[in-house]
């Protein structure tokens, strides 16, 4: 199942050239970019692992692409996303966020039904990826 989270996720995966153009746009707005990765793509998992600290004071997308590539090399079977933060209001606000890497095989999500009192049913989703312990998912 193909994960659709963030911008452009219904399009084919962005090429490096397209990623570079998006990052260049973010930098031009004065936003700081960061790279994050996870092997648990549950939609409510907002806090992905940070790949280093957010990158402030960069002028050119090449530096960020360098980090993306290094993160991809280290975690080829993880989801990797780039987020652009705008601090102009005094706090860091995500302005852009898009995937730049996904595992070759995406297990997707299962629907979980929980039986409540009085035959009430509660529904939630669970990512199949987390069936295995952290680190060995997608292996």
């Amino acid at each position: 199942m193909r994960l659709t989270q963030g911008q452009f996720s219904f399009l084919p995966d962005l090429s490096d050239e397209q990623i570079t153009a998006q990052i260049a746009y973010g930098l031009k707005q004065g936003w700081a970019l960061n790279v994050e990765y996870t092997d648990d793509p549950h939609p409510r998992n907002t806090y992905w692992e940070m790949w280093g600290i957010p990158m402030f004071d960069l002028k050119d997308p090449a530096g960020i692409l360098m980090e993306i590539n290094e993160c991809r090399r280290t975690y080829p079977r993880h989801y990797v996303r780039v987020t652009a933060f705008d601090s102009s209001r005094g706090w860091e606000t995500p302005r852009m966020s898009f995937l730049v890497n996904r595992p070759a095989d995406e297990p997707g999500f299962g629907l979980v039904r929980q039986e409540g009192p009085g035959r009430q049913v509660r529904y939630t989703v669970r990512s199949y990826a987390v069936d295995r312990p952290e680190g060995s998912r997608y292996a």
Partner: protein
Amino acid sequence: MGSSEKILAELADDTPVDLAGAVENSHVFEILDQLDRELIGLNPVKTRIREIAALLLMDRLRKNMNLSAQPPSLHMCFTGNPGTGKTTVAQRMAKILHRLGYVRQGHVVAVTRDDLVGQYIGHTAPKTKEVLKRAMGGVLFIDEAYYLYKPENERDYGAESIEILLQVMENQRDDLVVILAGYKDRMENFFSSNPGMSSRIAHHIDFPDYSTEELMEIAEMMMVNLNYRFDADSAQAFGEYIRLRMQMPHFANARSIRNAIDRMRLRHANRLFERGGEQVTRRDLVTIAAADIRASRVFGEKAAPLMTSPD
């Protein structure tokens, strides 16, 4: 672009080239002329920079004519004594490279060993990469680059930093230009023990020391920019000052001149201040007097060895 490229490929050898237009569009002469005007002396440096600019411009024109060649290597080495204008010229170089489209942003990130090399295992690579990221799209200026290499210490982390720099200099030529700077003899030593670095540097530019006349011109230019001037006496005093200062330790060419002017301004201000209620004119505010110069330690302690800069 695709189809026009094909047409160009079929163009005859006598196809005219719009050289004037290319020069005009790049505005590169504006920067070269500005360099000529704003930097005194440095003729060999200016000539080399013109040559490099010409090479890059022709490379662009040849590309338009479908005459492909490997893009020219642009990493450089600036050698010369302190205060001879290396940092200043690096800033201009970045602008030229930007105008001609060889770097995307045209900024300069100036670093020394401490910015690149870490204190413990695993510290160096992230530091060097951090600097490289900031320099992407511009010029990375490494001052006193020979400190990166410390042969006397086997476990020095400088080598690790050099390794990463070399990789990026080779593989990401489109992304940044590296300029190494430092004293000439030490730089030569550094290159002879780091052939990998030496072979990646295409342009070696040597910055000569300034003559007394050039230093005087530099002083006059700095004064004009600050809205000060010498009178006949103080101009002569400053000429003497330069000659004495050049013989003393820690002489740093144009930077010593800049420092001297700062001290003179201080003495000038104090002199006027001490006059209390007396009438002071606009002329007094702009004129540095001989006394403001002759009060310098340079005139007093000629023979005494100075531990600090005497400006």
